[in-house]
């Protein structure tokens, strides 16, 4: 296949897991204010602004920020959401982010995931949790280029990277 692509492990990624009631306007409002961007209410979408806020479930989001920001985000959220039934957890240590770029990435992902990555079916701002080969992953499309972010649990990262190298070799994916 002519298209090529690249894969790179992000070394300075921070993650915050947020649980709360999406039905509660007050919660959504306060969270949006402190993050300075809305929590996506639409399933499997990303709010991309200062941070990337991934929809994980009807009452769960993953805030992807810079490594140094995580503690601050946690503190700010806990402060802003005080009194509400929420859970804010710094999970920076638990996740590894991998940047994927290039059209060949769609073919790469299709080798391990049953999702449909056709441009008509999966667009920028879309995200999904799914299985990649034998690991659970979070994948989001950031731009039209296309560029994707792949988030995997730290203990599975070694496996996922081995799988990506193996499956990407025939597709001209370069690993940084």
């Amino acid at each position, binding site marked *: 296949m002519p298209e090529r692509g690249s894969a790179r492990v992000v070394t300075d990624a921070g993650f915050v897991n947020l649980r709360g009631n999406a039905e509660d306007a007050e919660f959504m409002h306060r969270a949006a204010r402190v993050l300075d961007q809305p929590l996506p209410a639409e*399933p*499997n979408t990303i709010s991309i602004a200062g941070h990337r806020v991934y929809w*994980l*479930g*009807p009452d*769960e989001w993953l805030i992807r920020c810079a490594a140094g920001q995580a503690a601050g985000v946690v503190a700010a959220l806990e402060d802003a959401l005080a009194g509400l039934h929420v859970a804010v957890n710094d999970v920076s240590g638990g996740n590894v982010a991998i940047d994927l770029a290039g059209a060949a990435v769609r073919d790469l992902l299709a080798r391990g995931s*049953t*999702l449909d990555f056709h441009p008509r079916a999966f667009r920028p701002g879309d995200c*999904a*949790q*799914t*299985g990649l080969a034998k690991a*659970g992953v979070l994948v989001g499309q950031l731009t039209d280029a296309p560029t994707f972010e792949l988030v995997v649990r730290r203990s599975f990262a070694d496996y996922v990277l081995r799988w990506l190298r193996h499956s990407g070799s025939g597709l001209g994916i370069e690993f940084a």
Partner: protein
Amino acid sequence: MLLIDCPWCGARAESEFSYGGEAGIVRPADPDALSDAEWADYLFFRKNPRGVHEELWNHAQGCRRWFGVERDTVTYRIARSFVLADGPAGEGG
């Protein structure tokens, strides 16, 4: 491979889900009030129908939500998925 409609994430491949057995089994409010036989019925005995079955599935690799599915155990056709309402399953949307 079944195609299962997650109420939140839409149609996804069976491999993303885990099966949770018969839906609508309510845990007895006062187990001590039950005879061993009644308790055994709750513990082990299931409808196991040959035909339409209301069952639980969990979108394990997705949004981690449990929900209900109405599936035919012979044709494997899925009639609908439903969100679990408070209380017994099967009454939800």
